[in-house]
């Protein structure tokens, strides 16, 4: 059983389903409980969608996703070469306002943070953006 799984693919919204399938496969091999898999799948989808829509915008590029088990946690890294952009800087939804007064964005970040134990952004040596999602699985 491997402890590291990697997928590199075009940063295209049509690939989100493929990314979700990849997470499901890696999670099954690592033997992660299904509720946690659902949470991780959503968080990774949100992260990837942000990279594609806000990072690359209309430009072409790739996303590199690595899933690794480390002790009792799973660590997922998403790397891309879009212009440097920290998705965690985006404002979160104003949950205090009535729905019709809130702007539409920010829910993806909120869900990532809700479902993962930690979400961190860094600028890697060999790319422009890296998002690291971590969740305790045992």
């Amino acid at each position, binding site marked *: 059983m491997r402890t590291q799984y990697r997928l590199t693919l075009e940063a295209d*919204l049509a690939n*989100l389903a493929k990314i979700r399938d990849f997470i499901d496969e890696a999670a099954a091999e690592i033997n992660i409980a299904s509720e946690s898999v659902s949470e991780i799948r959503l968080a990774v989808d949100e992260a990837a969608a942000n990279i594609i829509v806000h990072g690359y915008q209309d430009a072409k590029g790739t996303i590199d996703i690595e899933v690794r088990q480390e002790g009792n946690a799973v660590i997922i890294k998403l790397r891309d070469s879009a212009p440097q952009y920290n998705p965690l800087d985006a404002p979160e939804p104003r949950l205090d306002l009535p*729905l019709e007064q809130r702007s*539409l964005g920010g829910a993806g970040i909120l*869900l990532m943070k809700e479902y993962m134990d930690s979400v961190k952004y860094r600028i890697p040596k060999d790319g422009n953006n890296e998002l690291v999602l971590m969740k305790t699985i045992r």
Partner: protein
Amino acid sequence: MSTDLQIEVSQMEGRVPVTVLRVSGQVDASNNQSLQNKATEVYEGGARNILLDLENVDYMSSAGFRVMHSVYTMLKDSGDDNSTLKLLKPSDAISRILKTLGFDTEFSSHSDLKEAVDAF
């Protein structure tokens, strides 16, 4: 793998006419626009009470919730005080997100079609 959404439109009568959008598939940022477009189309055709039937939706990311938010706001802004959106049979995962985003206090979810239609 195709991630096209299937959306069936039907009309029901409760106390008011209700337009049901029955969605099938997984809703994400690649296909949420088709749901938005369908909702806008029925709204422009006069629909003011929209029921989103999510029984066959086994996955929805924030992209889908953005559409719900947008449709809800469109109905609220219509000038008809009673216009609203309701949901039918959201999965447990979707219900959890409705709560996290605070949508559950703004529009209701139902587990039965007749009950949902009569709730408008």
